[in-house]
């Protein structure tokens, strides 16, 4: 059967090595450590790619289209204002700083008008 995911492929390879060379041929702890280390390496690469992609997009938003991971897309008209990587003075309608303003004024309101339990 063809493995559906990388994880299944890995498990199949592991099963076949163990079937051929014996159950103790691969040390469980060493294996766990390798999997954890590699997992972290991939995750770090992902974070770096995510942040670098944003930076490149901020420099050339019109021409560059880089995505660290293939993310979901849904058919809907695009927002009119192209957004670049957020900076402290961004004024796009969906700038993160505006969201934070919204959050802070909400907190102030809650102080005056204590919220639900």
């Amino acid at each position, binding site marked *: 059967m063809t493995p559906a995911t990388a994880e299944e492929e890995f498990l199949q390879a592991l099963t076949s090595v163990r079937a051929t060379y014996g159950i103790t041929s691969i040390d469980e702890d060493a294996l766990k450590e390798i999997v954890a280390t590699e997992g972290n390496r991939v995750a770090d690469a992902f974070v770096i790619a995510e*942040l670098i992609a*944003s930076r490149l997009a901020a420099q050339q938003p019109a021409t560059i289209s880089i*995505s660290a991971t293939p993310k979901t897309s849904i058919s*809907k008209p*695009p927002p009119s204002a*192209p957004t670049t990587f*957020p900076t*402290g003075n961004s004024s796009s309608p969906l700038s993160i700083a505006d969201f934070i303003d919204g959050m802070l004024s909400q907190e102030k309101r809650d102080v005056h008008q204590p919220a639900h339990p």
Partner: protein
Amino acid sequence: MSTPVIADKNVSTPAAQTPSSPVRPVKTTSKTMLAGFDLGTNKSCILAGPAGSNDLALSKVLPTVVGYVKEGIVDGIIAGNATILFGEEALNNMLHVDLIAPIAEGVIAHPAATRDFFQRIRSLIDPTGLAEIRIVVGIPANTSDKAREDIRQCSLGIFDRILLVPEPFLSALGFRDDTRIGQNGYVDPVTNSLFIDIGGGTSDLCRVQGCFPSREDQICIPFAGDAIDEILHNELNRLYPNNGLSRHKVREIKEAHAYVGPVRKPIDVRVIMGGKAHMLELGEALGRAANTLIEKIYPALTTLIARASSDSVTTLLQNIIVTGGGSQIKGIDAVLQKRLTDDGFESPKVKLAGLDYKRYVAIGALKAARAARENQWQYLLT
């Protein structure tokens, strides 16, 4: 800026213990570091980089746990004869330390251990101890004022400026692909989505619709992975009395096999009980425990959908994203989607954030830290 003074009352490390990272000297700071911090019940993630640049100096996931080395441990057993260990190191030396989980159900349960954990985070961000640290911390949706204040109190004298932002909103920011905003066919999750973040202590649901989510847009349920562990553990104790399985082991079993939806049988799990290997058939027990989560979060999900405006709800239904460790439970997306469909909701689509769920909150937090205006940062004052 003023250098906050550490209030002694907040530094109550357990007797005979001294914090491993010393209290900082008065700063002659020139450098500012920005950090995004997902302070999780089980795992925390920290990302940091210098202000004014997009460089990433630190990216680390570590278990949210502090280990205080027991008295009388012989020199050399613990590397560097440290008195406090953190994260994996604490877990690896479980026998030699008193393990404390600083956070429970998403809020600070042990202030002293939390401060030590924060000190550790600080020293990872800035080993020199001289930089100004501005940190955005992810907190569960609708966290009480008291719980927020606890985080601020524990941060006094460790971080310099802080912003507390709800985790599901940070997940949306982290999940947002900045390079695709404005492209045809890409819906910015920040414009219209519903995030379901299933963590260890809490499940947080949040509608994000183009402005900062109000309290009505967020629901926090104190039922998540840890509660599933408890149900499964009780079930195992009922089925196999005196099994001697630790909560840690039960969690491992859950993480390897948990599923939701119709019963899957058999699920044979090999465990060591009393030194001997046993095969346990746990299909039903695992399903029962994990399906409880669906019963808890589904009503909250439909409540948030019902509160959406008629203009936005169709797109919202297409953009339901499950994240957090609980998103790894097999079948969770399909079961939620089917349930919504069966209940007549219009073409719902439930998606998983993916394996990088651990870092989305911290990525969102770092993006927020980089975007925050000077006047938005809050000072930590005694």
